[in-house]
């Protein structure tokens, strides 16, 4: 049941259910992150390293919405925005025009800035090192 009675409810902690998805070469429920989900584990690819996962449509999440993505495919894969949406990651149209390259074992953080600017994505290695900003191509 939604908690609507308190704007700032005090919790000792929050457990976020992890959504497992599999990269693929077309948009489907298999590889699309549902709106509202904040923790994602990419468990594999269907074909090859050109397979991709898809972020939610910008209008379905709030400004500042942050998604944590664990890359556990055993190899590279890509990240896109929904097909034909012209929505951006790191200031590049990633609806298939360009893609954000994801590297195995890294942890990605993806934050919605707003509906115009789109998503900002950055990453850490599995041992906490900052990954150089990725320019989608």
């Amino acid at each position, binding site marked *: *049941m939604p*908690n*609507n*009675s*308190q*704007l*700032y*409810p*005090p*919790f*000792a*902690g*929050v*457990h*976020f*259910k992890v*959504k497992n998805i599999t990269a693929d070469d077309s948009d489907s429920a298999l590889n699309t992150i*549902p709106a*509202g*989900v*904040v*923790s994602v584990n990419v468990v594999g690819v269907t074909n090859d390293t050109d397979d991709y996962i898809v972020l939610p449509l910008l209008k379905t*999440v*709030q*400004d*500042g*919405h*942050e998604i944590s993505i664990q890359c556990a495919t055993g190899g590279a894969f890509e990240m896109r925005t929904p097909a034909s949406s012209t929505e951006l990651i*790191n*200031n590049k149209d990633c609806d298939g025009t360009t893609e954000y390259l994801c590297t195995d074992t890294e942890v990605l953080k993806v*934050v919605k*800035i*707003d509906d115009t*600017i789109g998503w*900002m*994505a*950055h*990453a850490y290695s599995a041992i906490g090192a*900052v990954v*150089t*900003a*990725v*320019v989608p191509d």
Partner: protein
Amino acid sequence: MANPSTTPNLKGVNFEAVQLTPDDSESVLNIIPSGAKVVKCLDGVNGVNDFVTLPSLATVRDGHSIMIICNTAGMEIRTPASDAEEINSENCDGTKEYTVAAGDQIHYFTKIDSTIGWMGNGYTAIGAVVGAITPGA
């Protein structure tokens, strides 16, 4: 209805972005409410020296983190006037300010404790780490 669990198991959480307008003095326009998690900053009233104000340290818990989506022109972050509270080990109650460059950057502020104050760090809108900011006068 209050959520009876102190450690709820959720798929996600939507934090409503509090929209603020940086200004050259403190008012309801530019003070971050205690407990807010996401702040979206609009264009400043005057210019790049306009600021938003973090909550008083006493009103939030150790470890409380706030995401601030800064505006396009650039702006400043302060602690409440005359409280001597610090960001990155500098008194930011107006004595000094944490200055954010132009470009819709995302900055995170984490309360260490009521003595040490806030740690601030940030990213550009295209995912690059912003070098640690030492607040200046």
